[in-house]
C-alpha cells in the first residue's frame, strides 16, 4: 500500500493545468477589451504634442485635463462651439420621458397579454416579436413622412414617440416573459377577491415586478442614450442628443484631428451607460438570464 491519504472529510483543493488555462484565457480576454479604453483614457489626458509621438499605450508625461473641459464646453460641433454639454442635457430630456413611457407601456402590454387571454394574443405577440427583429432603418423614411404629416417631426415629442414605439416590442417581450413565470393562481385569487384590471396590476403584480423594472430601465437607459440614428433623424436641431454632437465634434474637425478632445468627448458620452452597468451589473445579469430561460 502507498502512503496516500485515506479519502475522508473535505476533498483537498487542487490547482491543475485546466484551471491555469481558464484563467489565462480570461486574462487575455479582459486585456483585449480593456486596451481600447486604456488608450482612450491615456490619450484624453495627453497634450497633442505628446499624442503625435504615437506612444498610445504610455502613461502621459504631462498630465492635462484641458481636453476634457474643451470637449465638455467649447469643442466645435459644426458652426457652434459649445462642446457636448448641450447634447448631454438634450439626451437627458429625451431619455427620461422615453424610458418611463416605454416601460409603462411595455409593462401594460405584457401584463394584458399574459393574464388577459385576449383573442389572438399569440398572433399579436408574434407580430411584436417580428417587429423586434426587423432592422429599424427600414421604418425610418415612412415614419418621417407620417411624423411630419401629424406635425411632430423635428421635435422632442417626435423623438420620444419614436423611442417608445421601437422600445415597445422588447419591453413587451421582457415583461411578458417575466409575468408568465408568475403563478396564474395569484391573478385568479385577486380576481376572486374582487380586484379589476388595474387594481391587480397596481396591488399585486407591480409590487412583485421590481427586478424586471430595473432590468427594463437598464436596457432602455443604455439603449436610448446610445442611440444615434433616431436622434439624428427625428429630434431636430434643437434637441440633438449627445451622440449626434459627439459625431459632429469628431467628424467636423478642420486640419489636424484633435484626438485628445475626441477621446474625452467619447468617454464623457459613454459615461452614463458605463455608470449604469457598474451600478447594476448584478441585476442586469439576473434579468437577462430570467428572460432567457423562460423563453
Amino acid at each position, binding site marked *: 500500500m502507498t502512503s496516500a491519504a485515506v479519502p475522508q472529510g473535505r476533498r483537498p483543493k487542487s490547482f491543475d493545468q485546466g484551471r491555469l488555462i481558464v484563467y489565462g484565457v480570461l486574462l487575455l480576454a479582459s486585456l483585449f477589451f480593456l486596451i481600447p479604453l486604456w488608450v482612450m483614457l491615456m490619450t484624453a489626458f495627453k497634450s497633442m504634442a505628446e499624442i503625435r509621438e504615437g506612444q498610445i499605450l504610455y502613461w502621459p508625461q504631462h498630465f492635462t485635463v484641458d481636453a476634457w473641459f474643451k470637449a465638455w464646453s467649447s469643442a466645435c460641433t459644426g458652426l457652434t462651439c459649445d462642446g457636448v454639454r448641450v447634447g448631454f442635457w438634450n439626451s437627458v430630456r429625451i431619455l427620461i420621458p422615453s424610458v418611463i413611457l416605454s416601460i409603462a407601456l411595455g409593462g401594460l402590454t405584457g401584463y394584458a397579454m399574459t393574464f388577459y387571454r385576449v383573442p389572438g394574443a399569440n398572433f399579436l405577440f408574434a407580430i411584436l416579436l417580428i417587429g423586434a427583429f426587423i432592422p429599424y432603418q427600414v421604418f425610418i423614411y415612412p415614419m418621417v413622412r407620417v411624423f411630419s404629416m401629424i406635425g411632430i417631426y423635428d421635435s422632442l415629442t417626435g423623438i420620444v414617440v419614436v423611442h417608445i414605439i421601437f422600445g415597445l416590442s422588447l419591453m413587451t417581450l421582457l415583461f411578458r416573459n417575466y409575468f408568465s413565470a408568475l403563478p396564474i393562481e395569484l391573478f*385568479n385569487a385577486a380576481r376572486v377577491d374582487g380586484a379589476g384590471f388595474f387594481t391587480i396590476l397596481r*396591488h399585486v403584480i407591480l409590487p412583485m415586478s421590481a427586478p424586471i423594472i430595473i432590468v427594463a430601465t437598464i436596457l432602455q437607459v443604455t439603449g436610448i442614450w446610445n442611440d444615434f440614428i433616431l436622434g439624428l433623424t427625428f429630434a431636430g436641431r434643437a434637441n440633438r442628443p449627445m451622440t449626434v454632437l459627439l459625431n459632429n465634434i469628431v467628424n467636423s474637425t478642420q486640419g489636424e484631428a484633435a484626438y485628445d478632445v475626441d477621446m474625452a468627448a467619447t468617454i464623457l458620452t459613454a459615461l452614463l451607460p458605463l455608470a449604469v452597468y457598474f451600478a447594476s451589473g448584478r441585476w442586469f445579469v439576473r434579468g437577462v438570464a430570467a428572460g432567457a430561460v423562460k423563453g
Partner: protein
Amino acid sequence: MSAVSVRDIGVEFGGLAVIENLSIDIREGEFIVLLGPSGCGKSTLLNGIAGLLDVSRGQIWIGGKNVTWTEPKDRGIGMVFQSYSLYPRMSVEENLSFGLRIAGTPKTEVAARVGRAAKMLHLEPLLRRKPSELSGGQRQRVAIGRALVRNCDVFLFDEPLSNLDAKLRNELRIEIKKLHQGIGNTMIYVTHDQVEALTLADRIAVMKSGVIQQFASPRDIYHKPANLFVAGFIGSPAMNMIEGSIAKSGGAVVFQCQASVVDLSRYEFSRPAPTGTVVLGVRPEHIGLGPAPTSQSGGRGKVTLIEPMGGETVVWTEFAGRPLVIKTDGEVDFALGDTIDFHFDPARASVFDAASDERV
C-alpha cells in the same frame, strides 16, 4: 340559499371539449369532494363554478341565482388554491383584508372580520408577517382565511393540501373539517387524494375524462363502487379484480373462474346477473386468513410477496391463477413460500359486467 347547481355545462379549450353535458346538484351546507386522476376535469369544473373559466354551454346556479355570466367576485364564493397564492408583498393582515379594502368596506368592519378569521385559524401572532416568513401550513391557513373574511356562501378548494408534507396535510385536513362543522358553509373541494376525499366529504363525485362516474357518500363509493374505474381508483392497495363468468349451480348463482367457484347467492344484485364475462372485485381487507367458514368462499395459495406497513401487512398470494392481495393484521408473521388459507364474504364483494364495466 347557497346551494350550487351545475346544469348541463360544457367547457372547451381551443375547440377541445374537456367537459360535456355535466350536471351536479350540491345541497346547501354540503361538503363535496371532486375526486379523480389528473386531467379528469375536476379543476376545470371548479374553475367553471368559480367563474375563472368561461363555460361554453349550460348554466351555473349559486344560492338560487344564475351566475353563469357573473364575475367571480359577485358569485359569493371564496377560493383556496394549491399554491397558496398569497400576495407576496403584503403582510398576512393585508392579505386577509385585501378583498374588503378594495371593495371599500369601512375600516372597523375590516378589522373585525380579519380579527375573527385570524382567531378561527390561529393566525393572530402572524398578522404582521410576510408570506415568505410563514411555513406551508400557515400559508394555506392564511389562504383559507382570505376566503373566510369575505363572508362568502360557498368555499372552493383547489387541491389545497397537495403542496404540504404528509404530517401537515393530516393536521390541516382536520382543521378544514372542523371549520366546515363550525361554519356550515357549502364547500367544494378538488383533490386527487382519496384519503382526503373519504375523510372530508359528505358526498364524493368521482370523475374521469370530464364525466362524473359516481356521486355518492364515501361509504357507498368505497363499498358499492358504481363501475370498475371507481372500484380501482379508490382503495389502497387496490381492489382485487378477478375475471370469470356467472353460472347456475344447483339453483344458486355462482361465480366461476378456472377451478374456483364462489357462491353469490348472498350477493345483492342490482340488476339481473349478466351471462357474459364478469369481474369479481374483493377489497384486500375483506379477505380473512384461515379456512373458509360455511357461507363464505375461500382458497389456498402460496405467499409471493410481503409488504409490512407497521399496523398492517399486505400479503400477495394467488387465487385462480391470478395475484391476490390480502391486507391483514401487522402482527401476523409470514415467510415467502408459505401456503396460506384465505376466505372472503361474497356479500361484501362487488360484481361488474365486464362488457359495460358497470356494477351489477
